């Protein structure tokens, strides 16, 4: 039995599929695409608790896609002012979950905090690198208050399901973003005004 030579059409389809594969259109999940969209690490900042301030942490630290190895339930970055380029160290992010349990995370020197569930722990434990370990997963919805340096902001809405603060508080304020989480609402007249946390 002899095999007939591939037709020009079959060859073209093979080439197109190969091209798509090489271009990354096949074999990349939505989570991988979201990870790629975050771009490279900041120069001089390695992976770790201080990296990627202001980005949606659970993109790589979520339960379904964890190239960052550790799974966070909540994580974000706090700034003193909306216009700051560096996060605020030592800010306290106070949560209350649907069962009335309160817990507070403290930001590290990049302004980042992240909350992990550590089974077997009796009490929440804050570490110096911005990590808060909880003995139980918090139950949504959550209420949030941020304070530091004698200033505080209370989020007027509730967090219903999203663990990455930056999903709703990413980058510049816009139709679908409240902008960064910050403590001081007052802005100099020439700074263009701040946005609500």
């Amino acid at each position, binding site marked *: 039995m002899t095999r007939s030579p591939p037709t020009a059409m079959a060859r073209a389809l093979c080439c197109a599929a190969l091209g798509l594969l090489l271009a990354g259109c096949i074999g990349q999940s939505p989570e991988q695409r979201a990870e790629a969209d975050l771009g490279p690490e900041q120069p001089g900042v390695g992976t770790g608790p201080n990296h990627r301030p202001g980005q949606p942490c659970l993109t790589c630290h979520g339960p379904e896609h964890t190239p960052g190895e550790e799974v966070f339930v909540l994580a974000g970055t706090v700034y003193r002012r909306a216009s700051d380029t560096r996060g605020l160290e030592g800010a306290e992010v106070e949560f209350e979950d649907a069962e009335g349990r309160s817990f507070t995370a403290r930001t590290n020197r990049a302004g980042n905090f992240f909350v992990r569930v550590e089974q077997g722990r009796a009490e929440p434990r804050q570490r110096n690198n911005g990590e808060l370990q909880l003995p139980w997963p918090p139950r949504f919805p959550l209420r949030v208050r941020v304070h530091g340096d004698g200033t505080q902001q209370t989020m007027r809405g509730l967090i*219903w*399901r999203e663990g990455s603060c930056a999903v709703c508080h990413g980058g510049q304020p816009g*139709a*679908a973003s409240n*902008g960064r989480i910050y403590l001081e609402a007052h802005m100099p007249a020439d700074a263009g005004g*701040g946005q609500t946390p």
Partner: protein
Amino acid sequence: MSRHRLPLLSLLACALLGCVESKYESLAPLDAPLDADHYASHVQPYVALACASLDCHGDGGRPLRLYSELGLRLHHGLRPRAQGDTVEAEPLVAEELRRNVAAFRSLEPAHHAGDERLVLSKPLSRKAGGAAHVGGDLFATSDAPGHRCLQGWLSAESAGPDACAEALEGLGALAPGAASDAGP
């Protein structure tokens, strides 16, 4: 004018005159027209906190897209702004309210009625007869204030407003128009 151009121009004129839009709007599956004023005054404040956050139905990619003062806005200019040490939320504009009402209306298959309505059954606990809802159970039973708030509006009952206020209070969060306690 050629035979082919006439239907095309008619369609275009129809669209410009709003005929296409009004035909679409007339597909409202609910028995009674929804009261937009009732929605704006009583239902929206509750919906804004319970449903329309940016991580739920304020996400433009999800079904039942809902606008709210602190959530999704029609454009950037409506985002709340800092005024001194406080942050002032911009009230919803008429078009945002209209779209919210349209979103609720378009969610309902024509044959649904009463508690079958998706907007009531999705957030209702499955133990109480509700349907699956990625956002979880908002109503433990159909007697929950939030359920009665929405049900009252959808069925044009007078009991709605009190239930909406009760539901809003039950969430225990600051209302969108309230001043933040930011300060030095």
